[in-house]
């Protein structure tokens, strides 16, 4: 559920106009709230990539610390992506039982639990 910019370049090298139209469609149709969520997603992704590169290139020595950091990035990413799909007006039909406010409360609770475990695992 990341913003389409980065992976789209890697998946379809050929059609430049397709990416362009995609970007345009994204910019035009997406509500600003979702765009805000998307920037957070990009940030989380960059943070996760940075940690992963550090682990590969430098050391994975406190492996639990790496897993806690990386896991909290990934976990927060998917929780935020979940929130994004829950509050997306297009998905209203799928989430009949989850109002946007409820979705945010679920997101907050899930994040708290996730970070409790991540912090506990840092060691």
């Amino acid at each position, binding site marked *: *559920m*990341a913003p*389409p910019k980065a*992976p*789209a370049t890697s*998946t*379809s090298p050929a*059609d430049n106009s*397709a990416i362009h*139209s*995609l970007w345009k*469609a*994204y910019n035009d*149709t997406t509500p600003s709230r979702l765009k805000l969520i998307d920037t957070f997603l990009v940030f989380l992704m960059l943070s996760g990539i940075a940690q992963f590169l550090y682990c590969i290139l430098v050391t994975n020595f406190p*492996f*639990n610390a790496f*897993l*806690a950091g990386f*896991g*909290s990035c*990934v*976990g927060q990413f*998917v*929780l935020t*992506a*979940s*929130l994004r*799909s*829950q509050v*997306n007006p*297009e*998905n209203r039909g*799928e*989430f009949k*039982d*989850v109002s946007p406010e*409820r*979705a945010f*409360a*679920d*997101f907050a*609770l*899930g994040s708290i*639990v*996730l970070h409790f*475990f*991540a912090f*506990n*695992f840092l060691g």
Partner: protein
Amino acid sequence: MLAYSLPSDVSPSTLVNTASLIRIVALGLISAAAISSRLFAVVNFESIIHEFDPWFNYRATRVLASKGFYEFWNWFDPTAWYPLGRVVGGTIYPGLMATSGVIYNVLHALNLPVDIRNICVLLAPGFSALTAWATYMFTKEMKDESAGLLAAAFIGIVPGYISRSVAGSYDNEAIAIFLLMFTFFAWIKALKTGSALFGTIAALFYFYMVAAWGGYAFITNMIPLHAFVLLLMGRYTSRLYVAYCSWYAIGTLASMQVPFVGFQPVRTSEHMAALGIFGLLQIVAFAQLIRSHVSSKQFQDLLFVSVISAAVLGMAAMVLLTYKGWIAPWTGRFYSLWDTGYAKKYIPIIASVSEHQPTAWPSFFMDLHLLTFLFPFGVVTLFRQLRDEHVFVIIYAVMGTYFAGVMVRLMLTLTPCVCVAAAVGLSNLVDTYMDPQEPDVEDETEDSKKTKKEKAAGAPGTGIGVIDDLVSTLSAAGSVSSEKETKSKKAKTGIFGLDTRMVVLFNTAGMLMFFVLHCTWVTANAYSSPSVVLASTNPDGSQHIIDDFREAYYWLRMNTKEDAVVMSWWDYGYQIAGMADRVTLVDNNTWNNTHIATVGKAMSSPEDVAYPILRKHDVDYVLVIFGGLIGYSGDDINKFLWMVRIAQGVWPDEIQEPNYFTPQGEYRVDDQASKAMRESLMYKMSYYRFAELFGGGQVVDRVRQQYLPKQSPTLDILDEAFTSENWIVRIYQVKKEDSLGRDLKSANAFAEGKKRKRSKPPVKRRAIA
């Protein structure tokens, strides 16, 4: 048209209130039945811990209750695996102990000073009530409340679950089945509503499950499998994404907090399915997002191809990582579920456990009774509706049945699924026959014939036509409606008259009644005997208790030094540590195969080979179980071949299994027994002074049904220290080296007054220590 009239002047709120009152009362009664049917062992015998493993759990819980949680977490037990010791905190699933520790502290805070032993004994019955409730919730998601109540009633008393959760059976499974069902319930709920809250709850209970039982790998693979099948069926929804990702992200991080699990969720093959599906879901979700923004057909195709190729690449990466060794392959225990001959060939210690044998047909009937045949019926019923959550039960049914067929102890994981599916099926049937709606009379007769003919024509191709036919006849006019065919039949099928209804309903009620009788009988007769105490019946019907185990363990506890080392086969390690409170060499936690093989070698070697082993390990006492006098078949002579096999695995040139058989390939203990058998320490210890009991008459071993030689074997390196009343437990003390430096054999011969012959070559002076 109605078959019977219903009162029409009842307000809807009264109906709702009455229904919920009845449900609450029913659940209360089910809990009571579940608890009380597990108390046979406590009522008939006494409130003690059964079996072997629970003794360790009990001992660990006592440490937790008396010393607090942090001491327990860092507990190093120097009395187990004698020279090595055992880091208990890092080698157990602490969930069970923590649960009873919390209960203990809560009860004490309420000024109810209950002994920790009673909490341990009664934990499993208590949790079985919770299991019934969790099953009710789970089945409610599958069908409705009435099916839920049926499922709860089934699992409350079904012997397949009782067998592992009677009072006194303080094992991990006692709480694990509740956690299993509740995790599955939360997962289904999360999938249905698409709520991250339920995903988080599923993750938390998954964490509790990981902390409680090694069988958590079942959940780790069931949920991804369900998600994967939904993907393949084209049933991807954002709800699936939300449910799965919130469960996986939180659950995996949480499961790594348990020290025994550690980094396994990222390092072993058992957990890779979950990771793979997690990755796949990200790709699919991303693709969905793109698709919502772009409408071009060509781009969609491109995307589809890229999704598939990314999945294949991910798979290849995992295979590569496994081959490279960064991801550990399946462990032997898990692998032996797929390759059923593997354990016997390579890891005899896994194959030697009786619970790891394949299941025989009668035990399915014994454990499940009428659920055995309601189960497939229920699964077919689920197929006919096939909502997302039904797919879960169907997969669970397939996997659970396979595993239960491979291994007896996995019957336990199958049982909840059987209860759920059977309850759904049965409740469908009852719904149909309780429904007062009658079909129209006129066009019924010819139409039903016509539809039957139509179906008969279409059936043979499908193979399950007969069942299908049956189901469609049974399913209520309104309840099943997925295909066109059923739609056309909708108005025409149905039940006529009260008598047909009554016949079927009475029959059902009768079957359920027999189910209750069967469950009670099986529980009372087969599953409620503490293995610590053996019970037999006297000719006049009174009970005769054989209490040799505790007699011997208590002797050890009171009459030996506190740091005395006791060697026995690993089966009795936990009991010796728990009841006799002495240091053991090996125990039921079989983490060091070589150490066990050492004990096996000492038991199966002649005295002069065994003595240095015993001395090197500071063994003071050797304990053997011998059932030859009263016919107790689970004794060490019958387990002896496994000792030989395990020892042979480590020292193939010193111990060979064929040596212990007669030339004809028979396993005998009488005068035809092989030389290796007669000289082995185990044989000598078991039959030492046995012939004296018969006063010159025929010496008979009542387990093997063989006549032994009149001359009992002699022991040079051991002194008999204790033999229990019925000769079940025999304890020998290891002699110290001779003070004159002779080896023990010649010292014995001298003490008995036998002169050493001059011509004999000089014996070696000193036992090699």
